[in-house]
């Protein structure tokens, strides 16, 4: 019964969407804003990755992630009676050695992604997620190892602080928040695009430590 009602509901929604989408052409539409960004992107930001106009947007994103991490911590910690004492079975030697070998390589790859965020597809969030996946590998492979919570909290706060302070320096030097006050340099070089690489590195550290903290919280509880 429930399935039939659900399928009926979905069919109604699908027919409505089909009627509304059938006149929109696919593959040619492009907004004015997108054209403007493509034309003026390089000379205005100095970064080859066009998506780099979104300073405010990124600030909002890290705020959302931060609130989610706080909420997760509050939900998991609140009213907990005792620590779950499940016996942890040690991993085999091959798994342990492999994880220990892969861990620094994955960290290096994540750092590469967020340092080159203004040149290639990627950026702070992607690099941070790769770094957090390295920590997840350690949690799954080398079972008894835990990350230091103080270190993740300090890194997390420092990353956010660097971002906001960079924006406030822009407010003090120029006219508005997050103005690109450093020299833009030549596009396609690593040291270009002003403050964008600094922000990306800060976001990389922040997101990496935050997601590692989320993983830590979830692993501790189960």
């Amino acid at each position, binding site marked *: 019964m429930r399935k039939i009602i659900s399928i009926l509901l979905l069919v109604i929604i699908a027919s409505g969407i089909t009627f509304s989408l059938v006149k929109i052409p696919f593959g040619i539409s492009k907004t004015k804003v997108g054209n403007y960004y493509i034309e003026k992107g390089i000379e205005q930001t100095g970064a080859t990755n066009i998506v780099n106009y979104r300073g405010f947007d990124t600030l909002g994103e890290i705020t959302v992630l931060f609130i989610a991490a706080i909420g997760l911590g509050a939900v998991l910690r609140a009213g907990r009676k005792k620590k779950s004492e499940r016996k942890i079975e040690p991993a085999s030697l091959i798994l342990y050695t492999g994880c220990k070998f892969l861990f620094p390589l994955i960290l290096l790859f994540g750092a590469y992604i967020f340092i080159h965020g203004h040149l*290639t597809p990627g950026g702070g969030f992607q690099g941070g997620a790769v770094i957090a996946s390295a920590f997840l590998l350690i949690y799954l492979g080398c079972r008894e190892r835990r990350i230091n919570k103080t270190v993740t909290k300090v890194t997390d706060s420092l990353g956010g602080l660097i971002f906001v302070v960079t924006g406030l320096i822009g407010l003090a030097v120029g006219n508005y928040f997050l103005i690109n006050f450093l020299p833009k340099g030549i596009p396609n070089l690593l040291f270009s695009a002003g403050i964008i690489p600094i922000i990306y590195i800060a976001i990389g550290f922040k997101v990496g430590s935050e997601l590692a903290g989320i993983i830590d919280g979830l692993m501790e509880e189960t």
Partner: protein
Amino acid sequence: MICYIGAFGLIFIGLFIILVKRNLIKVFIGLSILDTGVNLFLISVGYISKGTAPIFSKPGIETGRMVDPVPQALVLTAIVIGVAVLALALSLAIRLYHHYGTLNLRKIKEQRW
């Protein structure tokens, strides 16, 4: 066109899972699939036939065939928020399991509909 069909296929699969399944973890999996479908739809709205990514990977690349960068930036945000929502939902599921001893939504009285 095939992009739209795929995107809405994912969205409807996700909605169907959310409406029908009893296990809370499966409902979250459906939520994640729905999220992916919406992201795919947004990306394909900005697509241009035979387009390239909006990145000047080498000097003097032609700009006429670049796809719209605005939906891509939006989808980047949406992916992050999806991760945050999923993490929060999983933590709530852990608390529910500790409290009721089950993840079956039909057996939890307050969650029945």
